[in-house]
């Protein structure tokens, strides 16, 4: 019997492409955020509101993933920003090579913020690095407090949890603090922002977070390059 030591990550091919994307984003000053959630948590509407409220002239672009249809891309395109639909035709998650193919024709030097809306799925997207700066998990108040405990892989990897649809809280028994607590149990450093795309609550905070993160993660690179 020949015993061969490999110590190879199974998703090393995806990781290779993701690393390549990460380098390109860094080189062109693009902040890339990977939005993950269950189907129906409100990712698309949140992105619509985000694009509406970002300062005029913001250089943003969106990739949106779905198994079928380009409904989300159509909605988001109304914002006037560049939007592309990735249709996976069966894959339950986006992977790095899909992102690489989608941005082929895009001038990355003209983009400061790239939002990637993943396929609605709280399980699979967690395993696939897309070269993003951060994963953002969107949890709707209708989903129950213990989702972070049920889907730890996703919450463990997310830098931010958006607790969405808080305008519905008066109609629900959900304890928002408990939901945040469970998320921190799985990932102590996770930040939490409560939002409502109906009342507008938390949207300014969310946009502030995005801009701060670009400054933190991308801005330093630009300052270095300018020197």
């Amino acid at each position, binding site marked *: 019997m020949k015993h061969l030591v490999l110590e190879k990550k199974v*998703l090393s091919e995806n990781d290779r492409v993701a690393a390549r994307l990460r380098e390109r984003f860094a080189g062109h000053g693009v902040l890339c955020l990977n939005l993950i959630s269950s189907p129906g948590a409100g990712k698309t509407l949140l992105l619509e509101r985000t694009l509406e409220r970002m300062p005029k002239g913001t250089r943003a672009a969106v990739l949106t993933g779905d198994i079928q249809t380009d409904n989300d891309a159509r909605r988001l395109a109304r914002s006037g920003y560049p939007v592309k639909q990735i249709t996976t035709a069966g894959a339950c998650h986006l992977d790095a090579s899909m992102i690489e193919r989608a941005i082929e024709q895009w001038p990355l030097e003209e983009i400061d913020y790239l939002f990637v809306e993943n396929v609605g799925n709280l399980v699979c997207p967690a395993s696939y690095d897309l070269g993003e700066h951060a994963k953002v998990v969107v949890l709707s108040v209708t989903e129950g407090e213990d989702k972070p405990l049920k889907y730890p892989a996703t919450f463990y990897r997310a830098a931010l949890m958006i607790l969405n649809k808080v305008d519905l809280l008066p109609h629900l028994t959900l304890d928002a603090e408990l939901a945040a607590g469970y998320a921190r149990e799985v990932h102590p450093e996770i930040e939490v922002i409560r939002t409502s795309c109906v009342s507008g609550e938390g949207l300014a905070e969310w946009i502030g977070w995005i801009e701060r993160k670009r400054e933190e993660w991308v801005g330093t690179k630009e300052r270095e390059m300018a020197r």
Partner: protein
Amino acid sequence: MHELSIAASILETVRRQSEAHGGARAARAGLRIGGRSGVDTESLRFCFGAIAAGTPEEGCELAIDYEAEGAALDLAWVELEDQ
């Protein structure tokens, strides 16, 4: 579920090792899987068995070292039969 594409990645790597060693049959592949990797080990075994059927890798056993914490998804080793 993506256990299928993960199984395919494992199969491909195992096959390449086999080919690099004169076609020696892969008897076992050692995986390290963390609870936070999001991968279901039973599903993975099933998918691997399904796609290996009828190929030179048929019968290759997956030896899974499962750790509840951590997010590992590694192919640690492959055992090839002597020819």
